[in-house]
C-alpha cells in the first residue's frame, strides 16, 4: 500500500462479486456474507456487559442484540476500509489554554 492513497480491502467484495457471478443478487450476496459472520446472541451480549459496567435485563438484551447486529452489518463497510497510516482522526487533540 502507498503512503498517500486510500484503498479498500477486496476480500469481502471479491466474495460478494463471486457470489453475484454465481447468480446471487448483490443484496442476497451481502446477506449471505453477513450470515457467515458470527451472530450476536443475547447471551454473548450479557457476557459483554461486564466490560461496559452496565447491566441490561434479558428482555433488553433480546432487543439490543438484533439491533447491534443490524448496525454492525452496516459498519462493516467502514471496518473493511483500509486507510493509509498517515490518515489521522479528524478532530485531533489540541492544547488550548487561552
Amino acid at each position: 500500500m502507498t503512503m498517500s492513497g486510500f484503498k479498500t480491502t477486496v476480500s469481502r467484495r471479491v466474495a460478494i462479486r463471486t457470489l453475484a457471478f454465481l447468480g446471487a443478487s448483490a443484496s442476497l450476496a451481502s446477506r449471505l456474507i453477513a450470515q457467515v459472520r458470527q451472530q450476536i446472541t443475547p447471551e454473548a451480549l450479557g457476557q459483554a456487559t461486564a466490560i461496559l459496567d452496565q447491566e441490561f435485563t434479558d428482555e433488553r438484551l433480546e432487543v439490543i442484540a438484533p439491533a447491534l447486529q443490524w448496525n454492525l452489518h452496516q459498519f462493516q463497510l467502514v471496518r473493511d476500509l483500509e486507510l493509509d497510516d498517515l490518515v489521522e482522526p479528524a478532530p485531533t487533540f489540541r492544547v488550548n489554554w487561552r
Partner: protein
Amino acid sequence: MQSHELVFMSGMDLADLIRTRAVSPVEVVSAHLDRIDALNARVNAFITVTREHALARAREAEQDIRSGRYLGPLHGIPYAPKDILATAGILTTNGSRATADWVPEYESTITDRLNKAGAILIGKLNLLEFAMGSGTLSGFGPTRNPWHLDYSPAGSSSGSGAAVAAYMLPLSIGTDTGGSIRGPAAANGIVGLKQTYGRVSRYGVTTLSWTLDHAGPMTRTVADAAAMLQVIAGHDPMDPTTAEDPVPDYSRALTGDVRGVRIGVPTNYFYEDADPDVEASIRRAIDLLEEMGAIVVDVDVPHAHYATSAGWIIAMSEAACFHERRLRETPELFDPLIRERLEAAKFYTATDYLKASRVRTVLISEMKEVFRRCDVMIVPGSGSVAGLLSSPEVAGSDLREGREPGEYRRGTTFIGNMTGLPAMTMRCGFSSGPPRLPVTMQLYARPFDEYSVFRVGHAYQTVTDWHEQRPPVAEQ
C-alpha cells in the same frame, strides 16, 4: 392589507413593511398566532406557543420602531426554534418525556442573538426526541407534512420544517447532526441551511453529537436564511468550537448574478438512487443556472458512500456518552427507537469510533479536491420525496421486515456533517404525484463560504417560483 395576507409574505418582505411602518409588529405577530391557532391541531408543529410573551414583545417592538429605534431586518419578525434550544424561563422539552418539564435558566446563544436583533419568539417547535427519535411514539405526537397530512415531514427538525411550509411562521431554527435540517427542508420543500461547523454557536443546544451538531435557519426564501445567519453567526466565547473568522455581509450575495460561478455535479454516488422526478428536477435547475451564466463541471467524491455509515458510528457513540446517566437511571422515559439505538451504541468499540473519525479525514480531503474544481456542488436534497408517516407498530425500531441495512444508511446529507461544510437545501420542483410533493436540491460549498451558497440559491429563486407555491393546508 388583510392580516391573513401577512402570513404569506417572506420575513424580508415583512421587514420592509415594518421598517416603513406600513404594518406593525403586533399585526404581524397576531396574524401568525391566528394562523397557528387555525392549523396546529392538524400539523402539530408547535409544542409550545408563547402567545402572551410574543404579543408583549411585539408591542415593545412597535413602540421602539415608532420611537426610531429600529434594530434591523429581523425587528418585529416572528420566529420559533426547534424545542431543543434552551430558552430561559420557557419550557424546553427536547421532544422527550425525560425532560418534558425542563425550564432552563439560561438562553441559547442563537435565540439570545435573535432576540437581541428584535426577532420575536412565538413558540417552540416539535422534533424527534432528542433530535433522533421516532416522532411517532414521543409524548408530543407526530408532526404532519403540510403537503399531505398522511405524509412525514421528516426529522428531526419536523416542526421547524412543517411550520414554515404551512406558513405558520416565516423563520425557524433547526438542528442538523446527519441531515436533520436538510431532511425536513426537503420533505417540506423549504430552505434549510446547515452552515459551516463553527460558524454558529451550539451553546444552549442540547447535544446529540458534539462533533457533528449544527443549528441553523429554516425559511422559505434564501434571503430570509441569509438574514438569519447574519444575526446568529460569529464567535461565541461560550462555544470554543466557534470560529473567529469575520462574518461577511451576506446581503451582498443576493445579486441574482451567477455568471462565472462553477457548479460541480458529482458523477458518482449522489444521484445513483434518486427518484426519476427528483433527478429530472435537479438537472433542469442546473441547466437553468448554466443558462444564467454558471459553468457546470463534473466532480467526484470517491468515498462519499462511507459518510453515512461512519457518521452514524460517531453520532451514536457521542449520543450514548452524552445520555449515559439518563439511559442508566430512566431508560423507560426514552422513545423506544432512541433507547434501542443508544443501548446498541454502548457496544460500539473505540476503534470503530476512531476509524470513523479517520474516514472524516478522507472525506475532507476529497471535498477539498472537489472545491478546487468548483465553487458550489449540487446534489439532491433527498433522493426521494416525503414518505408516509410510520405507524406506531414500525416506528419503534430500526429493525423492520424486509428492510436492508444499506437502505437505512444511504443519503446525501451526512457528508456535510462529516466534513463540516456548508450545505443548503431548497425546493426546485415537485413530484408528479399523487400526491404532489416537493423536490429539492442541495448546494454545498467550501468551509465558511455560505456566501456562494446564498448567491446561487437566491439567483435561482429570482427566476423561479417553486418556493412561492403553497401546500393545500395553507389555502384552508
